[in-house]
């Protein structure tokens, strides 16, 4: 069991180094096609993994979370930006949990 501050310090140190090392020490572009492709795919893969099924576990009713997921995907597909999609998800959960 570590102090919360120890965790925060580790999070900060890693996040800072990931951003600053390429700007300061590793200034060469990455030449490996595999590494470039890997780094390109990582954000989408990791965000998708963290979204489902976490979203249906986050709400009081899993159905509300599932509906929010579908509504969010539909809104983003139709071109809604970051804030509208986030807001739509919240509203769907709020409405759904009144009914369910």
């Amino acid at each position, binding site marked *: 069991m570590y102090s*919360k501050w*120890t*965790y*925060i310090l*580790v*999070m*900060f140190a*890693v*996040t*800072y180094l*990931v*951003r*600053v*090392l*390429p700007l*300061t020490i590793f*200034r060469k*572009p990455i030449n490996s096609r*595999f*590494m*470039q*492709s*890997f*780094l*390109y*795919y990582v*954000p*989408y*893969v*990791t*965000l*998708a*993994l*963290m*979204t*489902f*099924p*976490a*979203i249906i576990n*986050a709400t*009081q009713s899993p159905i509300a*979370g599932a509906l*929010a*997921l579908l509504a*969010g995907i539909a809104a*983003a597909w139709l071109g*809604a*930006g*970051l*804030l509208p*999609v*986030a*807001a739509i*998800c*919240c*509203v769907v*959960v*709020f409405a759904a*949990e*009144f009914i369910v």
Partner: protein
Amino acid sequence: MEKRSKKTEDAYTSSGEDLLSVERRKAFRQGIRDGVPIGLGYFAVSFSLGIIARNAGLSAFQGAIASLLCIASAGEYAGFTLIGASAALAEVALMTLIINLRYMLMSLALTQRTDPKMPFFHRLLFGGAVTDELFAINIARPGYLDPVYFYGAILISVPLWSVGTALGIVAGDILPARVVSALSVALYGMFIAIIVPQARKSKVIAGLILICFAASWGAEKLAFLQNISSGTKTIILTIVIASAAALLFPVDTKKAYGTPDESPNPDACTDGKEVRDV
């Protein structure tokens, strides 16, 4: 662009009072102006992040400091979740590294647009604030990156990110459970808003997302995986799935983050226009 590069060059070669010149102040004001809409978005999303920090047992002050230092939505979300599970420090470090790998790509892209004459300490300062949105507005400007413009945008957006997290932690105690439940999906909504537009453009990304949903769901349900923490599962699945995708569907370099002199291709992960995740 040449004209602008010339000006920037002059700013570094002449004496320090140039830092307070009309040109500098104008760039700073532009940074603040462009940082306002970003800051408002940060405020809303960090509120939702605060609810997760509260579940992990963080105080409002700890949440504010964590957000001020890390400025990373998905990274902080994963970190807070792991803190709540009393995870090992190595797991927190590895998870933070994997999730924030995309910032490495952005910093590398910024390197190509950084004036070699710029004093070195600027890299250490603005480097800590390379987020999707701040990267996007800086890369969208012509010529060399202007640290003064960057600082203006940081000054208005990052405090809102930090304060929003603290308020989310405090409000989680005050608001009814139903409202907290609704607000807690804002963060997932933001993740969706980042990945879905790309899925629409690329069948590979769309397929990957569906595979990830299935894999993540399976990893949670399968009995023999019960002893592995969810953080470790995410790390392993990310490495396996992203590696497989990189082998099967290699990406064109220039698509990934544009050449130094052109703005990034909208098809690549460093989207220059839309306000996205932190």
